[in-house]
């Protein structure tokens, strides 16, 4: 298959089944959203190859992910946050950008050097964000230093990226690779592209003068805790070896509404990863890999997010955020808890057929 696309890949028994199930699960949701409001916007700090920046993160409400309409990824509930009807007009998208700029003005002293735009789909998919809008947004942020836009690898091509690099913006394409293991991406996540397509997208981005930020997903459904850690260690190493991929954001699965993961979670068949597992991967990949590895456990400490015992979650989360900025594994020497012993035993004892051993 030369040119992967959602349509071509919606084949095969497992994928059919996942998509069918996910369509049913998503159909339970019936909320709609205002097309002139972004899904979310916030200000944070981020580590980049050029150092730590204040960042403005925008989750644009586009028509939603094309793949999610077919069924889509087992853990992703963001599609539900997109507008009804499927597409958002140029004027509405620009109105969302205005809301974000207002938010930045109200909440930060200075303009953010780094702009991150996610769509819960693909910013570079012109069915979600028309070329006109993409260019206008590039124009809007032309005075910043860096920009990150999210896209599936199929939509990554040189011309689109050059809309940004033409303004001398350091540009990164954020790709939801999820895992470097094709089998896990296909069977557990239900994402249709292969690692080779990620490598191609990275090469195209590099040709356009952009970089790649790979997003990994720790512990998709069906994996045991030890298998999930192994998958992440292997994935970080494989990403680091891809030229142009300078950052890996490894994020634990959280339980989002109206997803297969939520159905499993509800019936006792899924536990988000331990924060100790995140720490374990960050520690083990901190040395020797020429790549920035960060993690942002969403909903940490809650049943639906990565969590430990409830006592140490905030401390461990703080260490992880610290590591994100400094890339120094010694930050983890500061934290310990009785529950590490439980976690160690989970790694010894948890298998594909008995997980989750503890909640």
């Amino acid at each position, binding site marked *: 298959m030369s040119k992967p696309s959602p349509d071509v890949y919606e084949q095969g028994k497992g994928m059919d089944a996942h998509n069918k199930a996910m369509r049913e699960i998503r159909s339970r949701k019936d909320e709609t959203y205002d097309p002139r409001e972004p899904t979310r916007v916030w200000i944070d700090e981020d580590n980049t190859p050029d150092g730590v920046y204040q960042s403005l993160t925008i989750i644009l409400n586009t028509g939603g992910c094309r793949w999610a309409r077919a069924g889509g990824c087992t853990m992703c509930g963001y599609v539900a946050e997109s507008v009804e009807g499927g597409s958002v007009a140029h004027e509405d998208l620009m109105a969302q950008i205005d809301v974000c700029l207002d938010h930045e003005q109200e909440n930060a002293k200075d303009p953010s050097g780094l702009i991150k735009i996610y769509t819960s789909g693909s910013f570079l998919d012109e069915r979600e964000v028309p070329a006109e809008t993409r260019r206008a947004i590039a124009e809007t942020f032309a005075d910043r230093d860096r920009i990150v836009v999210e896209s599936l690898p199929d939509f990554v091509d040189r011309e689109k990226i050059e809309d940004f690099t033409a303004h001398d913006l350091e540009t990164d394409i954020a790709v939801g690779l999820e895992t470097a293991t094709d089998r896990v991406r296909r069977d557990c996540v239900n994402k249709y592209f292969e690692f080779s397509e990620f490598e191609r997208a990275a090469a195209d981005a590099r040709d356009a003068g952009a970089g790649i930020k790979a997003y990994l997903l720790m512990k998709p459904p069906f994996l045991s805790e030890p298998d999930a850690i192994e998958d992440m260690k292997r994935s970080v190493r494989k990403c680091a070896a891809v030229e142009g991929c300078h950052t890996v954001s490894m994020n634990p699965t959280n339980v989002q509404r109206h997803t297969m993961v939520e159905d499993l979670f509800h019936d006792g068949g*899924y536990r988000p990863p331990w924060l100790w597992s995140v720490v374990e991967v960050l520690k083990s990949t901190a040395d020797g890999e020429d790549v920035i590895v960060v993690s942002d456990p969403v909903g940490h400490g809650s049943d639906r997010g990565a969590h430990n015992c409830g006592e140490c979650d905030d401390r461990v989360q703080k260490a992880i955020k610290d590591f994100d900025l400094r890339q120094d594994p010694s930050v983890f020497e500061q934290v310990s808890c009785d529950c590490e012993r439980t976690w160690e035993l*989970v790694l010894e*004892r948890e298998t*594909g057929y008995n997980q989750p*051993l503890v909640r």
Partner: protein
Amino acid sequence: MTDYFEIHERDGAARIGELRLADPLTTPALADDVVTDAGSLWPEDREVPDGDESTLTVLPHRGLPAGTPDEVEDAFAVEYPDVDCPSAAVVSPETATGHGTDAYVLSNATGYAGHAAAFVDAMLSVREATPADTALYLPGVATPANVATLVYAGADLVDTDRAVLRGTKGFYLATDGEYFLEDLDELPCACPACQQPRDEFDREDCAEHNQRALAAELARVRRRIRDGSLRDYIEGQARHDQWLTATFRRLDQQYGYLEQRTPIVRRGEITAATDDTIRRVEIQRFAERVTTQYRSRFSNPLVLVPCSAKKPYSESQSHGQYHDVIQWRAHVASMTSPIGVVPQELECTYPAQHYDSVVTGEWTATEIEFVSDVLEAYLQRNDYPKVVAHVPPEGYREIVERATADLDVDPVFTVDDHPTTSESLSNLAAELEGELTYPKREREHNTIRAIADYQFGEGAGDDLFDEIQTESRYPKLRVTDADGEQLAAMVPEYGVLSLTLAGGRRWAESDAPVKRVEIDGFVPHGSVLAPGVVDASDSIRPGDEVVIEGPAAFGVGRASMNGPEMVESTRGIASQVRHVEER
């Protein structure tokens, strides 16, 4: 084909088995040391391991946790290879089917434990879909408190994972539930891990204690299965946790699952200490057979009497006093909780002389409802010229009134205070004035026929034992045909009939439903092994009298497993053989 597992003893859905590894393991047991995981197929393809006889290899699998959509379970179903070593396949309730392995792992059992409805559904689905003679492993769920119920529901293998992990989280486990370790100012246990000062006892010790408590509880459960008394234990112990109580009650609602696996007779005595006892198979089965298979063949009046603590009732002092008055002029039936109604012919029949209940003089609403329902059904089926209720006013009288309210039966009450007072007894005598005594022959013949109805099916008493003679002294009756050839003997301990070859032949040729084990062309001696069984009646239960027939042999014996299990199994004793002849 099950090569490495064999079931030796059964107690309902619970079994004593043997995992036939290099070092054999008696189940139900902890599987920690004998299971080797060949790995999950979700993250990567796996080699099928060579395995060896020292370990049970869990073949490469895809775990399907609770909540997995059905279509996903189907699409990702695993084809299990044929291997020569002891092996286990991972199955979910939705996709369970036989894979030719020795054992099955209930995929992600952690999702079901704690939820009675989901757990019972899962157990029934997997147990029904996998061969009867294979082991079922419930990973990651056992605790000292729940393991008896897990085994009662049909688990053969469990592990220490949950007990150990709870320990490391500071939970101290016992058969009555779990305690926060920090709340315990003394350790309620005598295991080695607990033999140290409380302030030195840490979470590692707690994990160790939890494992030991689980191992000890499993030993108790094995003993209970061997004694046929796991249910009696469960009725008390499971009460410490709502989901465990709900589980055994929901299993009672799945009567077919338990009934098929529950023996016809047991050595042990039933402890009737709760209303739940009424819902156990032995009690329900007796009531059902008495009210649908048995029929009274006496034309005399019926005298209802209260049960006695001494069994069989006729040997008690009170029943002796009733008998002195009745003198075989009435048919006697005893009213009792939890059995219901016991006609005199069935007073030896399991469980009529194998229970002991808690006597306070007070009846619970459940007892009253149950016994009156049984009595009503009994009186609907059997016509008596007269019904005398020689029962105490408390409880009994209400039951008789309830039972007869909608019937054309007008019971005469003969007791104002106590049934053995001379006033009561003379009331009874007055009601039987002028009734004729039935002869001993009629009594004994009717007893044999009644037992046959109960044991073999409605009408079997007439079909098999129309023209008979009886010899020897009740309750050790011998049954012969008109020519003096022995057909059967009454087993006094269980109140059932054991057949001779002639009796078996008569049964096989009768119109009565036959419990038949068809075997291959061999002559079995001592026992019939499951692989030799070609077919077997669905109605066969453990302990049932069976006819054994094949091209080379005819015999009679007592079933060791139920009919479907005989057909499905490739190992184990299907039936004992009492008499056999070549044909």
